[in-house]
């Protein structure tokens, strides 16, 4: 009965469209609901798109992600109160990975923070952005202004030929080559202002490009007119980030995990590990001191059969963990997975088994990334 009551209280939520909706459909994108939006899961096929990104360049529409700008008197101290970041070491225009944590140290979201001239630019996950905005508004003081840049689109151009393709069409005060991995700057694309950083979520060299929504279709066309570039859907985005060992919020990360068991301690900057002073610090510092029972690891599977999120991991008859992501690796030609497993079974080389519909698949703990990163440092 309680479930029925819940349903009557929930308003039906309409699936929203993104600035490039018509563009994706015209390109043959197969549209699915994702994070509350219609988004392309694939165009010609996940495998082909995945391999194209690894060998050339792929254009991803990630406009569902939340782009936020936070400014005001005392913004640095205010942000350090909600993020485990050390802003004193964050130079202008370079994005840095960080996290929103709850009071118990659980991960509410992972995000990128960039220092702009007059404040901080944040990119948060699409499915969590409304909760993130509410959380930030609740915890930031009144004199801090949070602006949701919802008239901006966000594209990612990823792959070993992304630089060559983008350099040909971009202009700015300095050349695109001035950007190395995790550096950003202001450029022009098709006459529009573009905030570009050399970053992404595929493990490849590449760029993330924030542009006015009204210019998004023209810029997407311009980029896809470059011979190196094809549009890539969510399906390949997921298999690429998995190969790169990059966790996906809502799957590999959740409020059940802290930065310690998620093995993302680099998101808790050094000064903050000793000083604390951010939401969730008590749990994070305790986990740091005491360790956690489990930790996120990579698994390489024998054979071709994939195991997916929710599959249980065994050492003999003992259940020692659960998969949070899994799938076939197009680059490696065998299945891979991420799982939280007991510390005793977390060392690279440990042989484990994964239960898939009653069948045990052999797997080995391996270091991540599964496919080496090729960032331009």
């Amino acid at each position, binding site marked *: 009965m309680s479930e029925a009551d819940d349903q009557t209280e929930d308003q039906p939520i309409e699936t929203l469209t993104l600035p490039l909706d018509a563009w994706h459909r015209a390109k043959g994108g197969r549209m699915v609901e994702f994070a509350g939006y219609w988004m392309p*899961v*694939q165009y010609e*096929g*996940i*495998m*082909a798109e*995945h391999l194209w990104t690894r060998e050339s360049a792929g254009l991803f529409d990630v406009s569902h992600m939340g782009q936020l700008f936070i400014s005001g008197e005392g913004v640095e101290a205010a942000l350090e109160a909600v993020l485990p970041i050390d802003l004193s070491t964050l130079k202008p225009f370079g994005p840095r990975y960080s996290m929103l944590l709850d009071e118990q140290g659980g991960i509410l979201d992972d995000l990128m923070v960039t220092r702009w001239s007059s404040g901080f630019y944040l990119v948060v996950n699409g499915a969590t952005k409304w909760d993130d905005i509410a959380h930030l508004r609740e915890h930031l003081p009144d004199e801090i202004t949070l602006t949701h840049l919802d008239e901006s689109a966000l594209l990612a151009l990823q792959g070993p030929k992304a630089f060559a393709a983008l350099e040909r069409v971009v202009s700015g005060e300095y050349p695109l080559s001035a950007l190395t991995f995790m550096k950003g700057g202001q450029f022009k694309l098709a006459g529009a202002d573009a905030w570009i950083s050399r970053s992404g979520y595929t493990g490849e060299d590449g760029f993330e490009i924030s542009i006015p929504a009204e210019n998004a279709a023209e810029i997407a066309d311009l980029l896809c007119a470059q011979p190196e570039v094809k549009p890539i859907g969510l*399906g390949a985005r997921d*298999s690429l980030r998995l190969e790169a060992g990059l966790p996906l919020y809502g799957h590999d990360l959740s409020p059940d995990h802290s930065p310690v068991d998620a093995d993302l301690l680099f998101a808790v900057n050094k000064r903050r590990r000793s000083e604390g002073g951010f939401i969730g610090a008590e749990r994070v510092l305790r986990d740091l001191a005491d360790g956690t029972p489990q930790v996120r690891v990579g698994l390489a599977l024998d*054979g*071709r*059969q*994939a195991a*997916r999120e929710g599959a249980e991991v065994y050492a003999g008859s003992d259940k020692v963990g659960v998969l949070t992501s899994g*799938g*076939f690796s*197009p680059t490696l030609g065998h*299945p891979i997975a991420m799982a939280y497993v007991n510390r005793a079974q977390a060392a690279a080389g440990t042989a484990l088994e994964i239960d898939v*519909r009653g*069948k045990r698949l052999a797997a080995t703990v391996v270091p991540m990334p599964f496919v080496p990163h090729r960032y331009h440092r």
Partner: protein
Amino acid sequence: MPRYFTQDHEWIEVDGDTGTVGITDYAQGQLGDITFVELPEAGTAVKKGDAPCVVDSVKAASDVYAPVSGTVTDANSALADEPELVNSDPENGGWLFRLTLSDATELDGLMDKAAYDAYVAGL
């Protein structure tokens, strides 16, 4: 030989009391790149609507349902090394398994090619 289709996008071609089962071209297009096929063993008894076979794509694992009841006699061993045959030749070389029909009247509830094509056109 007559070929029948299900609303779940399996096909079954019937020769006497033997049926050969696969998924349709429409189904493989929806599933995308197939990376593994879990096939039933010979001797497995299946009821119409059981899922004796699972097709793995890059995206997800999908059940393949038995269009009719029977006993599995054979499976397409070529798919062990070449699961992509289900993408490239789904209605011929990419067949999945064979079974001996236990109740041929179950075929009456399935669609013929024209009815299936019309069904897919309406999706």
